[in-house]
């Protein structure tokens, strides 16, 4: 695109949204760059040329039509806080960011039927405040950083920390409104039926449900989204169970699967008490040994240190008596099956929590649970864990099975050893139980803005880990634009039938390839090699 064509494009955008809401200077575009990018200031960094911020749905439609006319790719963001996964950066150099932050109305929160309907610019902080100020008896489920949005987070299939049916944020959505690549407005589910009052209660409506196409996809710009909410629970309770031997993890996982899938527990945290020994070089060498240590070696280290091999932090939400009965049941179930297992009662109190309870310093044992997140209260407390200038994340999806945990520890541990990074995978790495029905592990090396060599090493490591994991059937759940092609390529069953199907649809629905080309590894014909 030449300079005059670009100027004409910007001019049309200004006509649609007003002079003040279109940007293209380096200064104005700086905050749209990915502040956590491992390819910062290298030719691989993908930067937008401009940004446009509509105030309402009609302006979004107009912006999409303008982009189509000028054939400029648009990269929609809601709150644009996707750090670790590309920030607000697009998949194609020179794209225009469609910044929906100004559309920030909480349209409805229904405390009888337990749902909300929000615009893209509503952050978790905003939604939480809206609910609390009105004393509404519903609880949100938020990711750790509260400045992101239900819409943006869910559209990248983000996760939170309460009950399984709420913490998979895309899974908990119910009904969306979308501006399609030709500027047309569409609603999914019951939203497609004029006069229906059940848009946030029945997500499917009738016939094929296309809502999945808009998550990690590029088939439209989502302008409204509904979410199911948990009624404000009356009581909160925690309990810890520890098991002595390394292989006890296998049974422990089966029990936790049972508890979680039966709706008895909120998010749980697996941990190895042995991680406390990683500061000891001999133990660290054992836990990160090439090919992995033997069970006997790990058990010997555990008994020498007088520590258990694994622990599970359980959380319960509900009526007080129900949480007590569920904890008692969980404890008995695990203790009666795993010799040497022990249980510790945790904190318990009526909700909403007081300030002191939110501080989480009354837990009788060390815990990795962040109390605010566990109770659907947004914060930025998590930023404490960010190192250097940020990080990139690879979070491979892993079967919910102890043997699989051991295998990933070993395989990815061996694969990552050639990189001078902290040991993300070792014999004490515990699985994360974020998404409702699967495990994941974390690989999140830090980046340093002024250390290109370090960043290049991280960049290599990311690609290497994606490839090695895929050889074992472990795929990433979410990726920054610079890694989306690598990750999409690993979902290659039957000659990449999935990608072919998606690209055929992309060509049909978005022939000019203007909505986030490349997102999710889906490229329109115009950009395909």
């Amino acid at each position: 695109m030449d300079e005059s064509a670009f100027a004409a494009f910007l001019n049309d955008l200004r006509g649609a949204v007003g002079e003040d809401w279109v940007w293209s200077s380096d200064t104005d575009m700086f905050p749209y760059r990915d502040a956590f990018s491992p390819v910062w200031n290298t030719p691989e960094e993908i930067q937008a040329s401009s940004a446009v911020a509509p105030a309402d749905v009609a302006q979004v439609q107009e912006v999409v039509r303008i982009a189509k006319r000028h054939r400029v790719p648009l990269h929609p963001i809601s709150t644009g806080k996707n750090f670790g996964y590309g920030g607000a950066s697009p998949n194609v150099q020179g794209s225009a960011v469609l910044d929906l932050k100004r559309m920030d109305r909480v349209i409805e929160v229904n405390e009888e039927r337990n749902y909300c309907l929000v615009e893209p610019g509503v952050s978790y902080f905003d939604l939480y405040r809206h609910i609390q100020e009105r004393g509404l008896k519903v609880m949100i489920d938020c990711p750790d950083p509260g400045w992101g949005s239900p819409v943006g987070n869910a559209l990248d299939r983000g996760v939170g920390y309460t009950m399984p049916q709420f913490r998979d944020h895309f899974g908990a959505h119910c009904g969306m409104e979308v501006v399609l690549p030709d500027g047309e407005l569409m609603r999914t589910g019951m939203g497609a039926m004029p006069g229906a009052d059940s848009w946030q209660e029945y997500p499917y409506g009738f016939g094929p449900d296309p809502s999945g196409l808009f998550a990690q996809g590029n088939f439209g710009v989502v302008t409204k989204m509904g979410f199911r909410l948990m009624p404000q629970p009356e009581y909160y309770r925690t309990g810890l169970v520890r098991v002595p031997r390394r292989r006890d993890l296998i049974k422990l996982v089966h029990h936790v699967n049972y508890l979680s899938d039966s709706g008895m527990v909120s998010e749980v945290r697996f941990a190895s008490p042995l991680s406390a020994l990683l500061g000891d070089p001999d133990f660290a060498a054992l836990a990160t040994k090439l090919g992995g240590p033997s069970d006997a070696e790990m058990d010997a280290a555990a008994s020498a240190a007088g520590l258990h091999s694994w622990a599970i932090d359980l959380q319960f939400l509900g009526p007080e008596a129900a949480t007590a009965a569920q904890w008692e049941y969980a404890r008995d179930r695990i203790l009666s099956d795993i010799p040497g297992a022990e249980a510790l009662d945790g904190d318990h109190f009526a909700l909403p929590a007081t300030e002191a309870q939110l501080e989480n310093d009354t837990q009788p044992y060390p815990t990795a649970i962040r109390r605010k997140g566990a109770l659907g209260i947004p914060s930025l407390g998590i930023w404490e864990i960010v190192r250097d200038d940020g990080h990139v994340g690879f979070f491979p999806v892993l079967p919910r099975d102890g043997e699989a945990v051991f295998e990933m520890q070993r395989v990815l541990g061996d694969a990552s050893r050639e990189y001078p990074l902290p040991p993300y995978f070792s014999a004490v790495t515990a699985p994360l139980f974020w998404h409702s029905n699967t495990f994941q592990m974390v690989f999140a090396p830090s980046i340093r803005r002024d250390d290109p060599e370090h960043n290049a090493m991280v960049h290599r490591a990311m690609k290497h880990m994606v490839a090695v994991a895929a050889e074992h059937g472990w795929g990433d759940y979410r990726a920054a634009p610079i890694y989306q092609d690598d990750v999409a390529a690993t979902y290659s069953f039957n000659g990449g039938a999935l990608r072919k199907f998606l690209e055929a649809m992309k060509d049909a629905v978005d022939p000019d390839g203007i909505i986030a080309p490349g997102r999710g590894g889906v490229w329109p014909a115009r950009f395909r090699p």
Partner: protein
Amino acid sequence: MRLAFAVAGALALAAGGAFAQQATRTGPAAPELEHGKAVYAHWCAPCHANSMGLAGTNSLTIKYEGTDIPGVLEDRTDLTAPVITYFVRNGVAWMPPFRRTEVSDADLAALSAYLTAPLEDRGAHTPLLADEMAEMEAAR
């Protein structure tokens, strides 16, 4: 736990002046600073409030250890509008920059006015949203 109590000793030693002035930090801000204080509450306090365990407050406390500069941004008396603008629009280390759709130029000007006003006009420290809501709930 509020930071003021946790590191009161250190602050009192290192920043006797600033600490003494904390006694005046009660009540609402002067009316002309309300907008800026609301911007601070929404965009800065989540990392920079006067609380333990926050990335912004902790790192500034470490950075300025041994000087008379407090770790809590809201207690600073040395900031200027250009410095505030620079950090909001450029970020630093793992603090990302903020877009105009988040903090508008008018918001930024109000924020600067708040963070450069005399301490006694700024009112009480801005609470974290969670604490503000918990207090509101307790008062119900």
